[in-house]
């Protein structure tokens, strides 16, 4: 099949939009930390993006999307992008292979950026670099292969339209493991660590919402009805998530504006795996449930004294988990060729639960081991004094605001 300029135009734009999500994550996170670590926090997102970009070009894409080897991993045929050219992509016939690769690249990058939640305000930069490269290679690349490139989860029939398992469960549950290994910030629990700049987080959320249209509707890989449908359910779920979290926080006390935008993100996360399979009414439910669920997960996380600082687990992990399962419930044959529980296909539901469970276990387990390994070899944390002074000055020698 020949390349289509319309499809290519949309995926080009989508790739750029997804790229913008990484600074979006940086700003969202940066607003939530204290002013003495905001440069570090935003910097980690940029760094994640740069590291993943290079890794992907050199060998990551090949591991994830190279010719399947036993359902486990991709072959090294695409090393250094050899064989990845302007011809039609193997998995997207109407766009250039290079573009498909780039679209997948920005997904890998933003996933790594989400993970930085767990190490906010205390990570040692050199250790982050090592850990990031290990993680994206050993956690992200295999998962992407299993789910999207003909790996064993795909063969099981598990659906993941735009990354509920690969991106959100994987980053969220990895963040949980990482937070457990690196331990709490000094003083966590003994005094309040307020967000230093909520408007900054809201700018970040705005960019995320925007970029997510590229993420989900771009995952159609064509500019047509499926993209339109994914676009609509994405927005609907986000809106429902925002309203639900707002309402839930209101019932607990006061309506939180930061909660509202977090709920928007929760809705976006949850619809991600389902975006190409469900209709708008279902997306209302998926989003609203995500808002309440992720808010509850956050409260639970805090009540357990767990310092997974910026709630990648509560929002991305739990939201992604719900979304993966919800796909197995709400997938509608009127939208795409798949049916969920509601439309009578128990098998699909089971496949979703299985794939989600595998992702949870794999991401959590491998990340835990990697984090322990890096910690014992080079130490994950900065010294207590450096943490007290703040990473901006201690690590980067920079002050955010003069």
């Amino acid at each position, binding site marked *: 099949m020949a390349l289509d300029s319309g499809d290519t135009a949309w995926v080009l734009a989508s790739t750029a939009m997804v790229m913008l999500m990484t600074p979006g994550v940086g700003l969202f996170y940066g607003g939530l930390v204290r002013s003495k670590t905001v440069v570090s926090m935003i910097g980690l997102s940029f760094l994640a993006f740069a590291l993943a970009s290079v890794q992907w070009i050199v060998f990551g894409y090949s591991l994830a999307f190279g010719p399947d080897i036993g359902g486990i991993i991709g072959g090294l045929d695409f090393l250094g992008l050899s064989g990845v050219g302007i011809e039609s992509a193997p998995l997207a016939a109407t766009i250039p292979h290079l573009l498909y690769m780039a679209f997948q690249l920005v997904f890998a990058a933003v996933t790594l950026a989400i993970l930085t939640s767990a190490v906010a305000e205390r990570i040692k930069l050199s250790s982050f670099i090592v850990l990031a490269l290990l993680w994206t290679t050993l956690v992200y690349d295999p998962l992407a292969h299993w789910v999207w490139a003909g790996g064993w989860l795909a063969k099981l029939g598990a659906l993941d339209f735009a990354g509920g398992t690969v991106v959100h469960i994987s980053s969220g549950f990895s963040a949980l493991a990482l937070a457990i290994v690196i331990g709490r910030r000094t*003083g966590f629990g*003994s*005094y309040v660590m307020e967000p230093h700049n909520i408007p900054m987080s809201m700018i970040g959320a705005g960019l995320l919402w925007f970029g997510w249209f590229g993420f989900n509707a771009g995952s159609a890989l064509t500019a047509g009805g499926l993209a339109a449908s994914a676009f609509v359910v994405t927005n609907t779920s986000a809106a429902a998530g925002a309203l639900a979290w707002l309402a839930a926080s209101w019932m607990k006390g006061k309506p939180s504006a930061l909660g509202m935008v977090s709920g928007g993100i929760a809705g976006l996360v949850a619809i991600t795996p389902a975006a190409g399979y469900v209709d708008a009414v279902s997306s209302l439910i998926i989003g609203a449930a995500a808002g309440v669920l992720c808010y509850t997960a956050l409260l639970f996380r805090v009540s357990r004294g767990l310092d997974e600082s910026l709630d990648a687990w509560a929002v991305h992990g739990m939201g992604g988990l719900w979304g993966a399962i919800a796909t197995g419930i709400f997938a509608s044959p009127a939208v795409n060729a798949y049916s969920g529980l509601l439309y009578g296909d128990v098998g699909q539901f089971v496949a979703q639960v299985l794939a989600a469970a595998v992702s949870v276990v794999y991401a959590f387990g491998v990340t835990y081991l990697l984090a322990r390994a890096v910690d014992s070899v080079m130490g994950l944390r900065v010294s207590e004094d450096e943490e*007290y002074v703040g990473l901006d*000055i201690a690590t980067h020698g920079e002050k955010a605001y003069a």
Partner: protein
Amino acid sequence: MMKIEAIIRPERQEQVKKALEEKGFVAMTMSEVLGRGEQKGIKLQYRGGTLDVDLLPKLKIEMIVGDDEAETVMKTICDAARTGKFGDGRIFVLPVAMSGKVRTGEVER
């Protein structure tokens, strides 16, 4: 009357406020300042070199209290603000000549 000026760690704000409230001292004025003590702040090691981070963020608390209350307030703040590490802060007491209340216009000497 006396003016208490306490320079404490920002992260001890809640403890200090609570301790003062318990003793009945509510009124106060606060501001963010930067400070360093005799230690010249914190020394960080990096790659063989060291970096002095002087001028760390501190919280300044100002309170006008009766002459006889000054020592109680001092002690209360000291106890609540202490972590035992360098940088815990200082408290100074200055004499006040007069004091006025804007709302009522009354003046006290």
